[in-house]
């Protein structure tokens, strides 16, 4: 008998918790927390505890599939790879930019690096992107322009020692539960907690101030804070003088954002705003924590840069327990960005338009590389619909649930001449593919993930691949070889990391041998460097070493409520599920907690519309319509409704607005105009076949026997 525990990194959020996978005679039998891990410390959230179940799901893909006459037929690996290689070669010869590639924030650094190398060096296009576009593209741009580096400035555990934590647009306890641990510990030690969120999120019960802004007015909130700080002389004059530039522009811009003016825009009572702003400004160590509540707007970059403005104005950058801390949603979304699975940069954010950078990669990969930056996720779908993108290769992403305006996504994907998908499940997206390749989960391969705090950590193989599935890095290498490339010869993921380190300054010191004993935080520029817990200590990463203030005016969201669509619809996640549900909806306990979607509506709105709790309602926007259950709750303010986006049968993204931030190209998931009505039987029968109301557990249908 063999029983071992294999240490690995959680495949869910970006907190980067580690745990052991228990393996008995080669079979996965559970998860065990790791006591000595820096973030998780022997604790996990409900998803982490259950992270072994989906791995062994009977729904896992075990053989390559090729679609013939509309249905999938099992195929051999050779046949499937040859089919894809032949097709991609055809499109490459006509126009490499008619091909687009989606990489994956669920896959390892090594796999993302290979995927972007494959797109650029083998296919010859910069059309490579991934779901970071949909969550923190505005962070990469916003913090990039303000600080010179688009990543979390400080470390997770430093939050515990902050004197004030400003949480804006992050439902931390649900989305990053193990990060909320350190926020709660700070609170128990006396820190002040400011929550800025339209919804009453789980953490608001512990908040000293809950500022409920009208959705989409975050810039006005930040400007209001800064107006007050300057009016009261609470700014850090020395920091502004020594470390930053552009202050005059900021001062001029925020002048009009008096508490009264901000109250008019945001709906936050001015006294509350004044008290919260004063608390933040007076704290010795103040941290800002944010997430998609501020990034997923047409003003996403403005919001992020505004948070950077506030931190610099009060000198809260470059020291422990301060900073601007974007919490990244996926286990390896930080890494996928670091690896250059983006249309404009190679690994380490080295620009494809910079001749020197391009020459370096051309030299290493022994081929000419394209100069023009490629298309982003939403642009790819638009161009597919217009037949400018003809073939797509998607690794481990499910745009059919995750992208805004799904009907349009379907239109784009169905309009493709060729679609290949590699995934562990036959997702809604994979179902549209011509060829599907079975990949392995995190438990069956080796590699690294980079967590939200820039911590690069090992993912270790616990069990053998299920069926004929193959690791994503292996599949990319096989496909590259099938297309005739000789630059994809790697014995193991460690070799890929060596290549990454040789080409990526911030990862230069990362090597598997070091990672075996614990993670390393980038920048880690040499093999002797211990890693960097917090950024911008003496100077910022911008070219001149200074942080930059931007004077940013408030702009309204792209679509506002009107007579026809009187509600603001906001979307997001819940603790019991993850993203498009491909993993969590195959987990018994999580399905038991929340079996399907719902729409949160304020009791006053519900009463006005005659909607009762649990009733099926129809929610409509200019993009589409879904039917879902009403959850009547004061978590949402009047006039705002909220829908979690995990559930394919009542997919929130049928409704969302694909309007983009002009620079970061992130869609406005957090605000669009909607109407909500009582459900009409006739319309639903047509609109969503197969929708069933989950059975409610009541006392009557619980057997009384068998209780312990």
């Amino acid at each position: 008998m063999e029983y071992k525990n294999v240490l690995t990194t959680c495949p869910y959020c970006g907190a980067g918790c580690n745990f052991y996978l228990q393996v008995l005679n080669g079979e996965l039998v559970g998860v065990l927390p790791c006591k000595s891990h820096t973030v998780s410390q022997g604790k996990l959230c409900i998803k982490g505890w259950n992270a072994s179940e989906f791995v062994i799901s009977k729904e896992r893909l075990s053989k390559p599939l090729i679609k013939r006459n509309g249905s999938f037929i099992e195929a051999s690996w050779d046949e499937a790879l040859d089919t894809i290689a032949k097709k991609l070669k055809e499109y490459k010869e006509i126009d490499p930019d008619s091909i687009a590639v989606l990489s994956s924030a669920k896959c390892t650094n090594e796999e993302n690096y290979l995927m972007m190398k494959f797109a650029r060096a083998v296919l010859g296009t910069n059309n490579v992107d991934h779901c970071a576009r949909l969550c923190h593209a505005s962070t990469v741009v916003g913090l990039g322009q303000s600080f010179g580096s688009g990543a979390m400035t400080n470390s997770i555990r430093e939050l515990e020692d902050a004197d004030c934590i400003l949480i804006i647009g992050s439902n931390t306890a649900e989305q990053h539960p193990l990060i909320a641990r350190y926020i709660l510990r700070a609170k128990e030690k006396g820190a002040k907690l400011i929550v800025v969120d339209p919804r009453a999120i789980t953490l608001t019960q512990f908040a000293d101030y809950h500022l409920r802004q009208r959705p989409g007015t975050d810039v006005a909130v930040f400007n209001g804070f800064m107006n007050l700080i300057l009016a009261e002389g609470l700014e850090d004059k020395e920091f502004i003088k020594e470390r930053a530039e552009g202050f005059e522009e900021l001062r001029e811009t925020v002048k009009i954002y008096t508490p009264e003016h901000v109250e008019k825009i945001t709906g936050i009572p001015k006294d509350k705003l004044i008290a919260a702003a004063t608390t933040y400004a007076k704290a010795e160590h103040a941290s800002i924590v944010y997430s998609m509540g501020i990034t997923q707007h047409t003003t996403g970059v403005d919001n992020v840069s505004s948070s950077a403005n506030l931190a610099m104005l009060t000198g809260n950058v470059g020291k422990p327990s301060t900073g601007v801390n974007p919490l990244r949603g996926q286990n390896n979304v930080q890494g996928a960005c670091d690896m250059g699975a983006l249309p404009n940069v190679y690994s380490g954010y080295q620009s494809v338009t910079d001749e020197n950078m391009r020459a370096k990669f051309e030299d290493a990969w022994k081929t000419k590389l394209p100069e023009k930056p490629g298309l982003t996720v939403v642009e790819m779908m638009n161009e597919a619909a217009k037949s400018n993108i003809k073939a797509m290769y998607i690794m481990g992403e499910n745009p059919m649930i995750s992208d805004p305006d799904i009907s349009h996504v379907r239109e784009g994907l169905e309009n493709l001449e060729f679609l290949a998908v590699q995934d562990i499940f036959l997702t809604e997206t994979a179902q549209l593919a011509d060829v599907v390749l079975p990949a392995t989960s995190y438990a069956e391969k080796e590699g690294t993930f980079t967590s939200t705090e820039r911590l690069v950590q090992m993912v270790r193989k616990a069990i053998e691949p299920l069926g004929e599935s193959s690791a994503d890095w292996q599949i990319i290498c096989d496909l590259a070889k099938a297309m005739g490339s000789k630059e994809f010869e790697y014995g193991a993921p460690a070799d890929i990391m060596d290549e990454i380190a040789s080409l990526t300054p911030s990862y230069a010191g990362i090597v598997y041998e070091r990672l075996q004993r614990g993670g390393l935080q980038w920048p880690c520029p040499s093999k002797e460097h211990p890693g960097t817990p917090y950024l911008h200590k003496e100077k910022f990463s911008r070219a001149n070493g200074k942080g930059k203030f931007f004077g940013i005016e408030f702009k309204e969201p792209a679509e506002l409520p009107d007579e026809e669509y009187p509600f603001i619809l906001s979307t997001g996640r819940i603790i019991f599920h993850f993203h498009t549900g491909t993993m969590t909806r195959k987990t018994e306990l999580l399905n038991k907690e929340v079996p399907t979607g719902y729409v949160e509506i304020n009791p006053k709105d519900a009463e006005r519309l005659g909607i009762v709790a649990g009733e099926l309602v129809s929610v409509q926007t200019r993009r589409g319509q879904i039917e879902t259950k009403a959850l009547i709750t004061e978590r949402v303010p009047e006039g705002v409704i909220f829908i979690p986006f995990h559930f394919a049968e009542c997919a929130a993204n049928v409704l969302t607005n694909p309007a983009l931030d002009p620079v970061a190209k992130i869609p406005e998931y957090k605000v669009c105009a909607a109407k909500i009505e009582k459900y009409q039987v006739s319309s639903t029968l047509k609109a969503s076949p197969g929708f069933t109301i989950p059975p409610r557990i009541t006392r009557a249908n619980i057997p009384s026997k068998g209780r312990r």
Partner: protein
Amino acid sequence: MIKKVQDLARKWLEGKEVDAIFGLKEQDGYIAPYLFADASELDNLTISTEYRLCYTCRPPKENILALMQRREPNTKIGIVARGCEERALVELAKRGQVDLDKVKIMGIACTPEEAKECRCERPYPNNLVIGERVEGVSGDENINTLLNKSLPERLEFWRHELSKCIKCYGCRNVCPMCFCKDCKMEQEVFSKTGWLPPEIPMFHFIRFYHISERCIGCGQCEKACPVDIPLLTIFKLLRKDVKDLFDYEAGMDVEQEAPLLTTLDEMPMKEEVPSGV
């Protein structure tokens, strides 16, 4: 101490007294449970208070030893067990989960520092094989502080602590005594599902009551809690109540019947389900 444990384990393995040793293994600075089947690996056998060897595997929803015994019923397993682990094994055997005939326990004593860290009242196994027996901690500051508060203050204390819960089920998952296939914490009849924080106090109380007379006081629940709810404090109080009411302490003797473990010779009382529900 560790040398003695390794030597005895080697002796048991080489002398075919057991087929494998279940203990903790250290690798690259990380420690985790491991089944040693080969004596040559025993240099990596270690002891640590950080991990216990009695826990329920999920999804199988079965204790790890029970799972091993079910997979390979003829394998005799030696287990390096502290006092709390021995007590857990006794309770598991009492409840038909683990066959103690197929287990050989190497009872080891905890040091005074370890006992203090775990606030443990009995830091030694009944069958002590290696180490010096030290007395457990008497009195508990956390409990004294709590009991000195008024009832409304205590209620508010618990309400605050439980309101932090993020429903990870970690307390249940690490508990050596939580092995029910049909866990009551998951059921909507007891506390509303899909909601944070879970219903106060029912979500937690259902487990407190359920575990009260089997709790062996290992404190793993408290250590697994991501929001630092002082669960050991409440379980110590429950254990004291069980002792005072029934003169019973969990994990002492397989033959001793648990006070709340009753045999129902007749059908349990039928629940009255009102018509129309």
